[in-house]
């Protein structure tokens, strides 16, 4: 049984600067990191393995050759193996092409038990790849998982975070679970893990290694196109009033009258 974790190398958006004239990110010189939500996904995969004594933690990423770094990071944390899906033909993929490609890689390796992803990546913020992946693989999905309550080979009960609290959800396995940061605190790497990572070379999948329809990968497999990237205008601070409820009600009515709302 394999516990897959799909991870993504992203620019450290905390340190990204904007090219205001062009409305794009300045990527040059910005360090690349493992998507922070994916670190929680890796951690949860390791915890499931430790808790049940079952499963092999396999980490997958699609990206340029340097995306190998995030696989190494996962190895240093305790993942057993890492697969890099990398080829020029995969470049320019949107979430649809990405999830299609990932699903093909998972099918090729086979025997999935759980497929973890972070709830979203901090660069695109779409939160689409997890759900799309489940659809491609025709298996259930549970998004925004904040706790795995019970898990065995065939079923899992978990809590998923909502705007108002949480749902308790049961699902059959295999399933795709996307996790929120509340689920755990990622561990630090170990020295032995780092030493293993230092010499680690991932298996690389190209389109030839996967049973893919070439029209569904990379740029040509991507129906999404970005029309415009812009920085929204900063909201100006509103007016602030203090006083008793009656006083404030009167001020509010006056203001609404001024605006001809009432």
């Amino acid at each position, binding site marked *: 049984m394999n516990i897959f974790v799909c991870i993504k190398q992203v620019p450290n958006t905390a340190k990204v600067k904007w090219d205001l004239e062009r409305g794009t990110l300045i990527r040059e010189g910005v360090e690349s990191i493992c998507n922070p939500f994916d670190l929680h996904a890796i951690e949860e995969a390791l915890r499931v393995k430790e808790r049940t004594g079952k499963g092999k933690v396999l980490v997958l990423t699609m990206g340029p050759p340097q995306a190998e770094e995030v696989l190494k990071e996962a190895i240093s944390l305790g993942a057993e193996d890492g697969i890099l899906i990398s080829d020029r033909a995969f470049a320019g993929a949107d979430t649809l092409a990405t999830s299609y490609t990932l699903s093909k890689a998972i099918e090729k390796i086979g025997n999935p038990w759980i497929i973890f992803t972070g709830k979203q990546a901090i660069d695109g913020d779409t939160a689409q790849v997890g759900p799309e992946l489940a659809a491609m693989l025709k298996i259930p999905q549970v998004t925004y998982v904040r706790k795995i309550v019970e898990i065995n080979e065939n079923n899992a009960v978990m809590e998923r975070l909502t705007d108002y609290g949480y749902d308790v959800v049961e699902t059959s396995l295999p399933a795709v679970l996307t996790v929120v940061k509340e689920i755990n605190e990622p561990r*630090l*790497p*170990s020295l032995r*893990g*780092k030493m293993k990572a230092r010499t680690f070379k991932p298996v690389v999948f190209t389109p030839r290694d996967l049973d893919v329809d070439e029209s569904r990968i990379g740029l040509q497999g991507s129906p999404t196109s970005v029309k415009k990237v812009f920085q929204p205008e900063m909201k100006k601070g509103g007016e602030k009033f203090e006083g008793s409820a009656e006083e404030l009600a009167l001020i509010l009515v006056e203001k609404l009258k001024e605006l001809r709302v009432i």
Partner: protein
Amino acid sequence: MKYFLSEEELMVKELAHRIAEEKIIPVRQKYDEEEIFPHDIVKIMAESDLFRVFIPEEYGGLGAKIFPMVLAVEELSWGCGGIALAYAGTALGAFPIILFGSEEQKSKYLPKIAEGTLAAFALTEAEAGSDAANIKTRAEKDGDYYILNGTKQFITNAGEADIYTVIALTDPNKGARGATAFILEKGMEGLEFGKKENKMGIRASVTREVIMKNVRVHKSQVLGKEGRGFIVAMKTFDHTRPGVAAQALGIAQAALDAAVKYANQRYQFGKPIASFQAIQHMIADMGTKVEATRALIYSVARAIDAGFTSPKESAMTKVFASDVAMEVTTNAVQIFGGYGYMKEYPVEKMMRDAKITQIYEGTNQILRNVIASRIIKEAK
């Protein structure tokens, strides 16, 4: 300064630094004030394999080296000298076994320490501090066993550690030559611990008495040979004093970092105080001494790992580093001025933590005797 660390050494340093930054610094003030023993941080250190760096590979370690241990202690102490001591004190408890343990003793204890089981070393007694040969703890032979009686004082990690190296007299008539080292385990009948001492600094570390009341110890627990207890102790210190020095170095570096940051932020007379020469010269001296300390410790640690162990040089690291730590932390408080005296800022704690490094594992006065006697002897 460039120290040309190997890739492995750099890994140890960076990982320990990360633990200090992400796990230790957020809790250090609380643990200091409330005297909380850092079991949670010890677990993180263990999971990160930091305990393995000073344990031989055949026993689950990564190579019984002093240098990576020194790097780990330095970085952990940069976070908190007290929390780091759970780790450094364990190294002190482990080295007698690493250096003098039988194959059986090593396979019994070292894999556990590699996994993060804490250890301690017990030599000091109420009447035997600098005058270590004046210990009174007795170990009387009884067939295949020894019966231990006595009280060890100021023992780091006591009560929290599972493995203890204890020095006791097997032949009181022979003085220092009548001492023997034993490995004791927590849980042995008659092995008790005194109350936790309320200390000036390193308050996240525990210091207790180790009390032995007719503790029956099998002869297989003797470390080295009977009568070699002080040799075990002295050779151990030769290996671990750079560790205490590294603790002092980490504290000093932290105080320097805090002082420089503060000097850039604090405005007086319309300028950051870092622009005043009075402050600049203090910073220059602090930085120079910290770097000199590091250069000395790293050199000695590397020499030990290469097989050149010298009591003189190990003592030098401890004396120099601890005096620098006291000076640098005191000056850091001075640069912070009134704020530095307040517990809201970290430097007063660093000053309190630094003080112990001049006292334990041989007071600096006793160690100066060691250094001087060796230098004078070498010149003859």
